């Protein structure tokens, strides 16, 4: 059976420029791994689905680890040596619903 997913709209306090996105994701996932542990990370299986503008992105994770993922994002205060905060603006079961919430 397919795992149920949760899509989280995340806003960063710093801009993530186009060429640095791969590195940003790598550093972000390292931080998330530190915060939720190896077993938690494997169950959460986080993935950045798409970027919206320069400082927002949609993060996919498994529904069962959604709460831990929100806490892990709250605890993330440094990515790649840069101080930042990640705000969880919205969450939904589909990308479409999250994108709708993002539009003014």
């Amino acid at each position: 059976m397919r795992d149920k997913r949760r899509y989280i709209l995340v806003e960063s306090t710093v801009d993530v420029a186009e060429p640095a996105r791969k590195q940003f994701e790598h550093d972000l996932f390292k931080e998330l791994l530190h915060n939720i542990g190896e077993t938690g990370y494997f169950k959460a299986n986080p993935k950045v689905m798409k970027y919206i503008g320069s400082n927002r992105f949609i993060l996919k994770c498994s529904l069962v680890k959604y709460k831990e993922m929100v806490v892990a994002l709250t605890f993330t205060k440094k990515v790649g040596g840069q101080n930042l905060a990640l705000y969880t603006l919205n969450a939904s079961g589909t990308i479409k619903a999250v994108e709708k919430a993002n539009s003014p």
Partner: protein
Amino acid sequence: MEYYDVAYETCGTDSKLEKRLGYERIFSSKEAKVVDGNSYKGSEVEDSLFISSPRANIMAALKASPKAVVFPDSRIDRKVIKVVAEREVALCIPIGDLTSSYGLQRSRSLYMTSKLFDYARSKKIDVSFVTLARDRTQLCSYIQLIEMAKLLGASEEYARESISKINKSMVSR
């Protein structure tokens, strides 16, 4: 449900940011009358959000009827908690301090704070969860504040009630 937070003016919050983070209002430390226990006058304590410190005379401060009290070290002093319960002062938990620490220090702080929360609730004390952020990196959305409250032992229902009703009452009581 409308959600409220308290943060220092240094955050530079505005109505757009409040709306994005899902709050009805983020009260400034002036609106919430935040009083630092390191340097304060006795007359300032009434109706304030009093931040305890080793230098402050906490018993005298509690008698001056603050709206809420913060224990930054999260230690359980049973005598103090008893007075907090008797005088119906709310206990305020600053989430910004927890999220800005790291590693073992954060794990220890989380443990201490969850024990303080459990003990306070067992004495029927109202517990409020606010970021009390000093800068934007300590701020978080209402979704994150609810999850942090749940991490510390609150139920979903209590977490939501705390962030809406109790946080609002700290300013309007």
